[in-house]
């Protein structure tokens, strides 16, 4: 069995308003940061997972992302995978 470290990024779709991102953008400007055009907040999920090769692990992660980690009505996801 191979072990992989997977980092999943889950983001609100661009069509969905991100009020937390807007609030953080506003605070960033109050802090004095200049030039911020947009700020959106997502989630990162780190998973360590075993499987027989990368393809099998990708299948498992695809299922997890599609059914649990992200709600594809409002969110997109992507992930990177590193063999340990």
């Amino acid at each position, binding site marked *: 069995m191979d072990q992989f470290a997977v980092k999943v990024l889950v983001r*609100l779709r661009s*069509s*969905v*308003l991100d*009020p*937390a991102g807007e*609030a953080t953008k506003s605070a960033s400007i109050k802090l004095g940061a200049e030039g911020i055009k947009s700020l959106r907040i997502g989630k990162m999920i780190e998973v360590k997972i075993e499987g027989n090769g990368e393809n099998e692990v990708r299948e498992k992660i695809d299922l997890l992302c599609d059914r*649990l*980690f992200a*709600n594809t*009505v*409002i969110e997109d996801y992507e992930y990177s995978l590193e063999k340990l």
Partner: protein
Amino acid sequence: MENFTVGVVVFPGSNCDRDVSWALEGCLDIRTKYLWHESSDLSDVDAIVLPGGFSYGDYLRCGAIARFSPLINALDEFVKSGKRVLGICNGFQILTESGFLPGALVANKNLNFICDDVELDIVSSKGGWFNNGVEKQTIKLPIAHGEGRYYCDSDTLKKLVDNELIALRYKNNPNGSSFDIAGITNEKGNVLGLMPHPERACDETIGGTDGLFTLKSLILK
């Protein structure tokens, strides 16, 4: 209706389960039974309420973890059989996460947790959830949510409008919901999800009775 029993689902973090049960039993004389989320035996209940609260601490997304409970897995057959399911607040979030209703509930536009009474227009009579006998088309119900902004894409919205699946709309949209949507039904009409809390409006002494009709309609065939 003396044997009619409404199952009130209890998840870790549910906090309106007792209110729902109290309103059904105390105000409407409808028998209730608490259903622990690990149970998948729905054979002795005739309708189900998914109450408000914070199931599983709202971890990951509101309703996302609850979706995988044995009870929600058993709900598919229950819904297909035509029995009624009412999802209130967190219950509505669970119904969208688990695909019984389209769309999603996301953080309120202004990030406030809103606790208020709101005026609502009854848009569709599908399922008879708001038949109040006096043809009242505007009702007042309490809301209490931080993530109650209904969102769906434009194709889904068109389908909701065309098929008369929008049950309730806010008169003064408090949270940024698409098309002012506060509640929707499935196509058959036996599943209703709404953000307002009908169980908190069942007695004049606590501010109104506009929620009675919705809870009462759980016993409709």
